[in-house]
């Protein structure tokens, strides 16, 4: 049986960072459903935040101001110690990345260049043109090659294995061979990313089904603040590919069908660079009022930046517009609309990335520390992956080094794998029923129509009911054809079970939270209510049902104030 000290599940930025910080004396492997370079982290465009103070306008910046912006941006739901930790570690983390080989764009003085981003008091976002995620993933992967990190790629983890209250490994569906195998470990780190594909309109890759979050939930770990779903303001219509916030950071304007920069009405001083929750709602409101185009989108106008600046700073945006939108942003404004982009919530972990299940850690988008609270600032997600990935690798190493219990029994491991095989067998042996892509589409429709940017009690109740119906349908799932090798239908069905769970948790959290905070907007409760709701939602599986509890937010020195921009 494949056995390692530590398994890192996911080969994106959080997973690679974790792997690189694991104690080299331990046996380590990355398990990923795709090759690490195909991870969704490569799609991050705009940049990564750190208060370097490299630009003249940013010379008074420091990590405390970064922490304040992050906490205010979170609508005060972030745990302040964790946000401070992240912002303090940001500066050395960036220099470390540069030293590993990340080709950051340069300032006129030859330093790492920084651009303004939403909700930030200073130009603080370090970048490599508009392919920041791509170059950081490649750099960390290169380092993993140098360190000869073992990678099992195209291997979908299907389940966490728990024995005697401790996480002892995973079950894996190996796509190339079609086999379902146990993998034993003394600690498991999840870096499995977000769940964008439970929505119809998302900037996320096709692989972002969020099943990792659901596996943790099924293993009894709590999910935290799942009702907070970030919509990115600017995805290109109609393909919903991300157009980076950097486009506004470089000076792009949002314009409605009257030719007006409407952000004036929503965030008069920050304008286009207000935080994402505010800008996304503003755009949707304009479209709903009839101030959009084709009742779908508004314009992001970059024309005044000129071709030279666009080519230097936003080359991928131009390429995306030409290839996927059929227009050149040098000549025409870009049609944009909000689309699901990021999950603030996730697997409940502390600032050491440890969950309540011994031996199980999580980092990156799948985790909720919480540093983003109710709304994440642009440029903070790459930062989170790098800082907390590293912490997860280190903490898991310490855990394993101090572990006295023996490895899991082979019998447990093989029994778990056998149960997974039987599940797949059942889908294949059926001659009819529900197909994976139909189930997926049904779920997406519910989430998009009823658990979107604007929410009401009625819609959320309807959504919960529908989700529970879809769970029934999942019991009648089937796969046509017997080929188990590279079967995307099997991948989708395995993941779908977890997607149903996590959409239920998102919706339930949203229904119970009777206030508006950050990305969670309730039309029936349009104000923030600190007296009742300055707390984290925790949902765990108890006797097969979601069990909801709450936990106070950690406050250090930033008292909640009204959030204006």
């Amino acid at each position, binding site marked *: 049986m494949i056995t390692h000290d530590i398994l890192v599940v996911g080969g994106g930025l959080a997973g690679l960072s974790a792997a690189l910080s694991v104690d080299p004396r331990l046996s380590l492997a990355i398990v990923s459903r795709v090759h690490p370079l195909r991870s969704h982290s490569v799609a991050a465009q705009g940049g990564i935040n750190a208060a370097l103070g490299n630009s003249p306008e940013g010379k008074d910046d420091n990590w405390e101001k970064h922490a304040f912006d992050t906490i205010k941006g979170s609508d005060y739901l972030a745990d302040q110690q964790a946000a401070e930790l992240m912002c303090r570690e940001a500066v050395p983390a*960036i220099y470390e990345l540069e030293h590993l080989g990340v080709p950051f764009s340069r300032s006129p003085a030859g330093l790492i260049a920084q651009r303004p981003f939403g909700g930030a008091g200073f130009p603080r976002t370090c970048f490599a043109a508009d392919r920041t995620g791509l170059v950081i993933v490649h750099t960390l992967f290169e380092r993993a090659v140098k360190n000869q990190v073992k990678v099992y790629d195209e291997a979908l983890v299907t389940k966490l294995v728990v024995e005697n209250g401790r996480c002892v490994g995973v079950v894996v569906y190996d796509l190339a061979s079609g086999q379902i195998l146990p993998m034993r470990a003394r600690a498991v780190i999840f870096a499995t990313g977000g769940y964008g594909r439970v929505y119809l309109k998302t900037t996320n890759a096709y692989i972002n089904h969020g099943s990792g979050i659901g596996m943790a939930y099924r293993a009894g770990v709590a999910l935290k603040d799942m009702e907070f779903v970030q919509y990115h303001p600017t995805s290109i219509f109609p393909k919903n590919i991300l157009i980076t916030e950097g486009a506004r950071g470089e000076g792009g304007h949002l314009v409605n069908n009257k030719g007006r920069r409407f952000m004036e009405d929503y965030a008069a001083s920050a304008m286009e660079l207000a935080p994402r929750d505010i800008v996304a709602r503003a755009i949707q409101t304009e479209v709903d009022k009839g101030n959009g185009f084709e009742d779908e989108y508004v314009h992001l106008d970059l024309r005044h930046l000129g071709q030279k600046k666009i080519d230097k700073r936003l080359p991928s945006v131009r390429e995306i517009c030409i290839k996927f939108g059929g227009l050149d942003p040098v000549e025409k404004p870009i049609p944009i609309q909000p689309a699901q982009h990021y999950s603030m919530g996730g697997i409940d972990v502390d600032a050491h990335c440890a969950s309540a299940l011994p031996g199980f850690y999580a980092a990156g988008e799948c985790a909720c520390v919480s540093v983003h609270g109710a709304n994440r600032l642009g440029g903070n997600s790459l930062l989170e992956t790098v800082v907390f990935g590293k912490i997860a690798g280190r903490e898991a190493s310490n855990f394993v080094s101090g572990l006295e219990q023996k490895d899991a029994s082979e019998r447990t491991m093989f029994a778990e794998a056998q149960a997974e095989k039987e599940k797949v067998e059942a889908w294949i042996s059926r001659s009819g029923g529900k197909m994976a892509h139909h189930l997926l589409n049904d779920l997406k429709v519910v989430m998009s129509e009823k658990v979107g940017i604007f929410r009401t009690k009625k819609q959320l109740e309807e959504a919960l009911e529908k989700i529970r119906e879809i769970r029934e349908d999942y019991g009648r799932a089937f796969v046509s*054809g017997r080929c188990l090798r590279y079967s995307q239908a099997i991948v989708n069905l395995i993941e779908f079970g977890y997607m149903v769970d996590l959409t239920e948790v998102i919706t339930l959290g949203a229904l119970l939270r009777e206030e508006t905070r950050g990305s969670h907007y309730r039309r029936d409760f349009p104000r923030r209510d600190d007296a009742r709701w300055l707390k984290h939602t925790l949902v765990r599986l108890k006797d097969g049902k979601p069990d909801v509890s709450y936990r106070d937010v950690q406050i250090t020195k930033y008292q909640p104030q009204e959030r204006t921009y």
Partner: protein
Amino acid sequence: MKYTFRILRFDPAVDQNPCFVDYVYETEEKKSLLEALMDIRNDEDCTLSFRYSCREAVCGSCAMVINGRFDLACRTMLESLGTSVIVVEPLPNLEIQKDLIVDMEPFWRALFAVEPYLFSGEKRPEKGYQIDDRQMEKIDPYVNCILCGCCYSACPVVARDERYLGPAALAKLYRFVQDPRDLRGFKRWSRVNTETGAWGCDTVFKCNEVCPRKVRPADGIEGLRRRLVIGKLRSLFKREK
């Protein structure tokens, strides 16, 4: 619009040889080839296998041969092909694992052979590096590479000699050699001063032509050659360590 997709299908575990299978596909929307393949898989045959992830030309998963041209399926719009018969094949120069999925192992092996990582100094500068933007611009085209494998598959030298490192790996090496932070010595990287390394290139520039990211790997190979010649001359005069 009605299309006929002629897709090369092959499951080495079952089939003797790869063979083309036709699928009729109708759509009114502006679809990418990747979206069309997903529809065909969902509606016609769920055992049709191909790789994909980002759908925005940045992850490098879905390289294939489309009507004889190398490209990413996600960034190829059906209407841009100007034909109603669309022939889809896996990347050549690599073994087929299933349908449009090929074994990338030789490609990765070649990449790893050039030591594709920065040789940075022992200590990192506390306040970061100071590097002129013009120096970084020199490596800009090469860091745009997504390692999709189009160039490797299109390369006529790889086709006849599997020992040849190929365009992507050599361009990656050039990216590091040109990086002002990289401290690898000439001796270390000049191991590519061989017929299966920098001198293997036929300069027919297929790689430049097929790259979906405009990387121009052949320019990198030429750059390596220039550096190799200069380095050798210098070593004759013992100026290079």
